[in-house]
């Protein structure tokens, strides 16, 4: 067959094939060369024959290929089927379960004390409601099956109401979450529930004298924070008092909410912003995400205060989110200065010290 008799596509195909083949052979040769260099270097540097020793050692470490045994000659589940006799309760226990059983049997070790205290706690609760003797016997027998059930039940109820996790998703709803701040401190308090429906009017009144009391939409519970709790406005507190105690509700010791909000917006006073900033000083240990939400809330309300909010606000609030608590005080001082000066030129001055502070922090 001459070249002219083959069709053009056949020619192309054979060409392509030969090209591909040549490329492959090039690659293989590269690989061989690479190996040669490697070996040559190993020989000249003296590490080529390192994995060869005398015949006896070679025999010692030979790969083992017998059935039931791994390549080192060790048996895998040697102790799996062995049974031990517990010295305490004289029962036969499987070897792998022996250690945990001993822990519980002897009443020593971390878990057993936890289980015991839990049992005591729950048995106190159970005794108040009706309980059988048989239930307690069951407790003793199947210590870790029954016990683990109890554990999970408790855990679920603990997670339920006031955990910080849960409140994260609801973070942006308007300020009804007094609970996540106080979750750790007030856990037992909140779990038992300050259900305003069950309290008498006198108790309510005394509670409302000292506590914020705003009812959270999600948990239907009253906020147990102080009267100046920044999660809720005074308007909310008044509303709660009105609705719960009637129009004869005692006035809030803070003074009129209306007046305060006006002065807050109009005068751009130095006093109000700094006063608001003292959430750094209050008792709660705020997690960083709540701090950032607070910061943005804070700057959101301050929008009317400064005339140049667009340029400054994003950078400030971003960095506040990053370094929230520590900068609380410093911020306040700066912002107090910025407040009254509504001119553009003046605003430039304070900006540079701000940047300076951040550089130090960073």
């Amino acid at each position: 067959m001459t070249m002219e008799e083959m069709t053009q596509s056949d020619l192309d195909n054979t060409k392509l094939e030969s090209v591909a083949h040549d490329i492959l052979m090039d690659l293989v040769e590269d690989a061989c060369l690479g190996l040669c260099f490697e070996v040559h270097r190993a020989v000249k540097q003296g590490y080529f024959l390192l994995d060869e020793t005398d015949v006896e050692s070679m025999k010692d470490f030979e790969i083992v290929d017998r059935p039931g045994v791994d390549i080192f000659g060790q048996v895998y589940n040697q102790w799996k089927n062995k049974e031990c006799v517990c010295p305490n309760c004289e029962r036969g226990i499987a070897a792998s379960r022996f250690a945990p059983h001993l822990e519980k049997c002897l009443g020593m070790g971390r878990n057993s004390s936890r289980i015991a205290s839990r049992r005591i706690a729950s048995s106190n609760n159970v005794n108040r409601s009706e309980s059988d003797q048989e239930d307690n016997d069951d407790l003793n027998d199947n210590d870790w099956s029954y016990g683990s059930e109890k554990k999970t039940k408790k855990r679920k109820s603990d997670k339920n109401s006031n955990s910080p996790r849960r409140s994260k998703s609801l973070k942006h709803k308007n300020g009804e979450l007094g609970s996540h701040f106080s979750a750790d401190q007030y856990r037992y308090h909140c779990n038992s529930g300050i259900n305003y429906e069950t309290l008498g009017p006198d108790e309510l009144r005394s509670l409302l004298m000292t506590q914020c009391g705003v009812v959270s939409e999600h948990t239907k519970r009253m906020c147990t924070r102080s009267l100046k709790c920044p999660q809720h406005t005074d308007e909310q507190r008044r509303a709660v008092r009105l609705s719960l105690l009637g129009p004869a509700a005692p006035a809030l010791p803070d003074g009129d909410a209306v007046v305060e909000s006006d002065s807050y917006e109009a005068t751009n006073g130095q006093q109000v912003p700094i006063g608001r900033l003292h959430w750094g000083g209050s008792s709660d240990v705020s997690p960083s995400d709540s701090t950032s939400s607070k910061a943005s809330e804070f700057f959101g309300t301050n929008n009317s205060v400064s005339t140049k909010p667009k340029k400054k606000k994003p950078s400030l609030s971003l960095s506040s989110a990053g370094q929230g608590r520590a900068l609380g005080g410093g911020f306040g001082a700066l912002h107090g200065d910025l407040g009254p000066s509504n001119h553009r030129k003046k605003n430039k001055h304070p900006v540079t010290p701000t940047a300076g502070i951040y550089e130090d922090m960073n």
Partner: protein
Amino acid sequence: MHGNAMKRVNMSKESQMRAAINQKLIEMGERERLKELLRAKLIECGWKDQLKAHCKDVIREKGFEHVTVEDLVAEITPKGRALVPDSVKKELLQRIRAFLAQHSAL
């Protein structure tokens, strides 16, 4: 045009094409990838160990102290080429053909 002249013209065109393909292979990083792939496969299939054993023999033959790269290359490369398993060859050829189909000017 007659047969031989035709062949010559085709040859130079062909070599041009080869050069172009090789260049493209290198430029797009495909050659490196193919090289790594080949190396990995050769180690996997035991080719490297086989050849290393052969190296040992060659070295013992030539004398440990006097072995040169050229000796090794001369002895190893033909054997290495022959020892490549067919499966590895097939897989690499597949990849090369795919590349050519995508990027050749034909």
